């Protein structure tokens, strides 16, 4: 179902591959994409080792992070992965997957068609519920998945709930995290519904098969999402 105020704060596709991509190839891809994604930040891992004879600083190159002018479209060209991310406002799967496919084409032309170790599609949703000061929210009204704490005498003030399970289709796994999060808005309570559908075995290699799998994973994610929310939540997204 398409919502006019989709609660998606971030949509992510990650293609994690075997082997390591050379920094030169990554730099070349970032140059090719510099017009559309002008913000280009190197990604490094810093390691500080304290030893008897002093401290040692080691840096490890992880890749480059490219962003569009409004910072909502992001690509991480990593030594071990390719990540496409879209921050809110989410403008729909068709636009997101088309942009991902077009940048992945450029990536593949430079680094070759790699064998994957994991493919992930993750959607981070934040459900903003308008509340009055000191109002108590019944989570059950909005989420079909919620913690239950019988007989503890009062409303909970924070919760985190995580489920990992096979989805039972397409060899996919689901990592579902639900939690309260500080609302960025005044007069709202906010709940996270973070859905990560991934696959680590029998991964396709042909680009059209990868795209086909991504479409199906997104379909599975949608099914889980719709199953987790109630009509009261749907009303908030209209």
């Amino acid at each position, binding site marked *: 179902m398409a919502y006019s105020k989709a609660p998606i704060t971030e949509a992510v596709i990650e293609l994690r591959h075997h082997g390591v991509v050379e920094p030169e190839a990554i730099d070349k891809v970032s140059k090719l994409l510099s017009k559309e994604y002008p913000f280009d*930040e190197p990604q490094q891992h810093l390691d500080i080792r304290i030893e008897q004879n002093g401290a040692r600083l080691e840096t490890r190159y992880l890749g480059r992070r490219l962003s569009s002018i409004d910072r909502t479209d992001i690509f991480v060209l990593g030594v071990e992965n390719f990540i496409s991310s879209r921050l809110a406002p989410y403008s729909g799967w068709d636009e997101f997957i088309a942009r991902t496919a077009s940048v992945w084409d450029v990536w593949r032309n430079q680094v070759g068609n790699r064998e994957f170790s994991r493919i992930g599609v*993750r959607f981070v949703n934040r459900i903003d519920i308008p509340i009055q000061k000191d109002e108590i929210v*019944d*989570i059950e009204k909005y989420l079909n998945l919620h913690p*239950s704490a019988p007989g503890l005498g*009062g409303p909970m003030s*924070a919760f985190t709930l995580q489920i990992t399970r096979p989805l039972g289709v397409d060899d996919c796994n689901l990592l579902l*995290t639900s939690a309260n999060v500080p609302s*960025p808005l*005044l007069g709202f309570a906010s709940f996270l519904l973070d859905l990560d559908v991934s696959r680590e075995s029998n991964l396709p290699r042909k680009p059209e098969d990868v795209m086909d799998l991504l479409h199906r994973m997104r379909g599975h994610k949608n099914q889980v999402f719709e199953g987790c929310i109630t009509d009261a939540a749907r009303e908030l997204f209209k």
Partner: protein
Amino acid sequence: MNIAAESFFRPAPVPVLLAASPTAGFGRTSLAIAERLKGLDRPTPSSLPRSKQPKSTEEQLYDALASFKLHTAAVAMHLDRDWRYRLFRQFDSLLAAEDWDVSDQPPSVESFSTFLRMLIFLKPLRRPGLGASSDRTVVASWTTGNDRLTMECLPDDGIRWHLSVLIDDNRERAAGLTPVQRLANVLAPYQPDRWFNADNVPAR
């Protein structure tokens, strides 16, 4: 308080992000729980960047603009697209390195956060004019004729405001320091629609 239902939630005064750390434990089970809680932030990676220390004025402006845009993305579903686009253009212009006084620092992200929360809370139809103070705050102002409202957005949802309006041929001036949540009530006697709802300016 006796509440029968079991899925009731009331936000804590100090919000907790994802998992709270329990009292330390040293047994195998306690360590396994601690590991699992650490693992809560290790799914398919999010692309949000980690903070870094700014070095030059240009880098500070660059970082400020980037963090403003990322902050806005978190609430973008509550903003009209065109309105958001035009707001970014205003900030691009405000924080342009070539026009910036190098002795000043850009507004803080905490002030920008208050500004954004104020806009979403008050829902003005007109975008404000924007400025920045030497105290690293965003300053928003609306002018209609000779009537003017200025709001300085402080960190932690505080607004320092002052206004000047003509009421019954008398020029009135008022000022105050008010939390965003109370702003609509405090401004009501001055009919703030004169600034927020003018017909001759594009609506959000």
